[in-house]
């Protein structure tokens, strides 16, 4: 199998974290993975996106024209990337912040109120992990337990409470999609 993902949003919304967790989970399952970030010099604000390609064979071109799965965390990303979802692919929209609706009929659109669900899970900033949960349900980029393990690994240094919030966020997104 092969999966191509693009995740986009404001800097600080954790879109690069989404990409890294997908790549990490893939490697954990002994797949090939490539993570390619694109961002400006600012830590917060500005725009950020990343491309992740995972598969059973060595990854070819890191540059793609369109993607099978695209996650958009804010309005500018929706405008820019909604047309780039591959025909038959999936668009994941953070409907807490994105007011627009897709009019495309050749793709499946998943509206997930990520910030609201993250708030319920314990922290608004875990909205990215809610979206990751939605992606996991639809794309099955790895086993659920492997994704959980990646989260534990990535957030371990921030303490058990942060790990638990993110695990709840993953579950919320998974159940919603």
């Amino acid at each position: 199998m092969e999966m191509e993902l693009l995740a986009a949003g404001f800097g600080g919304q954790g879109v690069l974290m989404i990409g890294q967790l997908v790549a990490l989970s893939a490697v954990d399952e002994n797949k090939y993975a490539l993570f390619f970030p694109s961002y400006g010099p600012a830590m917060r604000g500005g725009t950020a996106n990343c491309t992740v390609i995972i598969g059973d064979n060595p990854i070819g071109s890191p540059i793609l024209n369109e993607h099978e799965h695209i996650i958009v965390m804010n309005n500018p990303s929706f405008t820019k990337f909604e047309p780039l979802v591959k025909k038959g692919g999936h668009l994941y929209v953070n409907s807490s912040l994105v007011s627009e609706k897709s009019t495309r009929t050749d793709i499946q659109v998943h509206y997930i109120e990520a910030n609201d669900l993250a708030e319920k899970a314990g922290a608004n900033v875990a909205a990215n992990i809610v979206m990751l949960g939605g992606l996991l349900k639809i794309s099955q980029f790895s086993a659920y337990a492997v994704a959980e393990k990646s989260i534990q690994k990535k957030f371990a240094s921030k303490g058990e409470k942060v790990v638990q919030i993110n695990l709840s966020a993953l579950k919320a997104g998974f159940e919603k999609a």
Partner: protein
Amino acid sequence: MGEKILMKGAEVLGESAIKAGCRLFFGYPITPQNEAPSYMAKRLPEVGGVFVQAESEVAAINMLYGAAASGHRVMTSSSSPGISLMQEGISYIAGAQLPVVLVNVMRGGPGLGNIGPAQGDYFQSVKPGGNGDYHLITLAPMNLQEQIDLIYDAFELADEYRNPAMVLTDGLLGQIMEAVEFHREKDLASLPAKPWAATGINHRKKNLVSSFDLDYDRLEAINHQIQDKYRIVKEKEVRYESYFADDAEVILVAYGTTGRICKAVVDILRSEKYSVGLLRPISLWPFPEKILQQLAQKSTTKGFLVVELSAGQMVEDVKISVNGVKPVHFYGRMGGNVPSPKEIIDIINTIHWEGK
């Protein structure tokens, strides 16, 4: 070893050097390779090495000069404008016949340019950029696993030929993460002996490390010796990947990131029964001239398309090799832009290939 880990390109540069027995790194920060010096700053003290952030690139390259003269494996990493600042020191190091490893994570130029991926420093590396008759052994990886191998080999080649070696990569390879494995680790006890090094006199003849000689005949003799060495390098150290190029009508020529993308192009077009192949130079100097000559002579070959992230630099070496036997076309992107496979396929389709 043997375990696959997810690592960032610039950090891979650092760990590969350590695995190759490098314990000294001198550098100055510049995007998009900052993770390399920052990795070395953390990692080198753990393995008994030394990291120095120099006050400038000019200082850094001269620290390399000193460290190499005393017989140590040493590396620096920088990006285009920083490498430009080092050119004087690189020429001195080549003149003094010292082994060092340089990494250029190429970014958009000229001048300060930007932080996107580019291949506009090809000329500077292979012709090369400093004064006098010298060459850098220049190796160009297309992915992070190959980067590990080529950094290791760059240290071996630099020592073997007492010449600086350059690993030429780009802003994309510096920033991506991939799963990598470190297969080889140099045993420090097995590092080659350097009887020419300035290690402090202890019951032996004085060793002089210098690129300076006022005697015309002596300096000419040194130059001849260096050129003799280069003839051996050109004979023995050419590296390339030939991917379906043997019987292809259209042969793409590309290195590094564009080589990787062109490989994907070949896969796509071959699945559509289109006769396309790739010749991917891995050593840019010595350049794979002979294989290109041979491919040009083949009756099946209609022509070449060189793809670079530049206005057209390696294409000149391809033209010299092909020597007018078949047409050589060129497609380049600049400013940090990287073409997608589809973009390259569109270019292939717009070119009039003879006999088509």
